[in-house]
């Protein structure tokens, strides 16, 4: 069977790229997913949507994505539970405040309504915070959170409605390039595609290697947990770049929280008790009331990282596109990034310049320095 565009990876990035391609009129698009949409990193992520970045490009990608998220449930026909309760970013040192002041002025210049707030103001937003644990904060009321499982599912369903073929349980095991097409060997037969997109998340490097392209991505385990549901306590995401912790109450009442840890590159997605101890210590120091909450379940997913913790986007060899290495913040910028990727594939000029995110920045030594990354 042959298709015009083949996307490897049925996570939010892959499904959203396929959806946008179809939306722009591209026919014969296929998504190859080793398991099912949401089985990999998307379905395991914290799913916060933050616009408070330190680089203009990231602010623009995040702001553009929020605009899409705001109407995505109606566009895709599934309630993806997008809520804008804001993001509260804790500052613990004077140096962080200095950085946050720069970030906020950049964000404001790009139409992102963030602001520096005092400990007292932060306590009005989240009364449960330990006032001794931070010295100031930033808050952006239009940041938010969506349900990553439903968002991924909604993109896949909407793509299918527009004619995209989403092939579940179909693992690509080999790619051969000949006469301008890619010949794919998969667990469900052989396929030919005219143009190939690597959206394989944690497995981006081995997928690129199949095409003969070396990309500097690697994967790292990140752990996360969910509590039993409790009555509404607060609406915003609370994060700290110092400990790398983030905690958010989802609409169903549970809190979902994770923390950055020192991890070696691996494909390990097992859970550890050390994570439970670590996150318990950190969360109860900023939110002492969490002592009374009960942990229902913990799990892990892969951050697909790059040397500068920023994604690699674009065409890396004729007809071969990558949207990889999101380094833990792929979900929040997925809607806008997927739209841009679809435009690049179709030869339409995107409205945000993403040339900074090309693969050759690593060779040229033009790494991106983003001061506001978790983990």
């Amino acid at each position: 069977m042959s298709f015009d565009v083949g996307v490897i990876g049925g996570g939010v990035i892959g499904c959203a790229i396929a959806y946008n391609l179809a939306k722009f009129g591209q026919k014969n698009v296929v998504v190859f997913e080793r398991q099912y949409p949401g089985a990999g990193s998307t379905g395991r992520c914290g799913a916060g949507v933050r616009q408070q970045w330190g680089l203009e490009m990231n602010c623009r990608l995040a702001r553009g994505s929020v605009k899409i998220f705001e109407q995505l449930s109606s566009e895709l026909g599934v309630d993806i539970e997008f809520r804008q309760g804001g993001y509260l970013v804790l500052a613990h040192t004077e140096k962080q405040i200095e950085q946050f002041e720069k970030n906020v002025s950049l964000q404001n210049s790009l139409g992102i309504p963030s602001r520096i707030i005092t400990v007292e103001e932060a306590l009005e937003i989240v009364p449960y915070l330990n006032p001794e644990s931070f010295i100031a904060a930033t808050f952006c009321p239009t940041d938010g959170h969506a349900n990553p499982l439903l968002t991924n599912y909604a993109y896949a369903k909407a793509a299918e409605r527009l004619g995209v073929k989403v092939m579940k349980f179909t693992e690509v095991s080999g790619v051969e390039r000949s006469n301008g097409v890619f010949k794919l060997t998969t667990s469900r037969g052989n396929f030919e595609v005219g143009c190939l997109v690597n959206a394989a998340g944690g497995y981006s490097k081995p997928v690129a290697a199949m095409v003969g392209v070396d990309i500097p991505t690697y994967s790292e385990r990140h752990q996360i947990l969910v509590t039993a549901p409790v009555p509404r306590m607060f609406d915003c995401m609370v994060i700290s770049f110092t400990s790398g912790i983030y905690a958010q109450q989802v609409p169903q009442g549970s809190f979902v929280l994770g923390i950055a840890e020192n991890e070696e590159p691996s494909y390990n997605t097992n859970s550890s008790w050390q994570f439970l101890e670590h996150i318990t210590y950190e969360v109860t120091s900023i939110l002492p009331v969490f002592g009374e909450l009960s942990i229902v379940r913990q799990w892990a997913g892969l951050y697909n990282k790059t040397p500068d913790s920023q994604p690699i986007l674009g065409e890396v060899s004729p007809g071969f596109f990558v949207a990889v290495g999101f380094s833990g913040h792929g979900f929040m910028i997925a809607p806008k990034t997927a739209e841009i990727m679809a435009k690049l594939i179709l030869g339409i000029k995107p409205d945000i310049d993403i040339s900074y995110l090309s693969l050759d920045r690593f060779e040229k030594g033009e790494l991106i320095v983003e001061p506001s990354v978790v983990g």
Partner: protein
Amino acid sequence: MKGSDNDIIVCRCEDITLGEIREKIREGLTTTEELKRVLRVGMGPCRGKSCVPIIRRELSRMLSLPMADVLPPKDRPPVVMVKFKSILEGSEE
């Protein structure tokens, strides 16, 4: 399809009925993991102890698969619910 048994609540933690599960199976979801992610069945405090056998039986019946091929979702720690406070007290000992 009998209307009455569609109203049976299969997942008591998340309030999901047999009818909702059947609708998603008809839509193309073929595993307990997919149903869990889309419907939240098995994500609640009981950890799927009551709903998973019923969901497996329904998948087996509707897709004509032997029960042995309809796997339960992955079991994840902790085995029972635990308060953060208990972990804090335990690790300070």
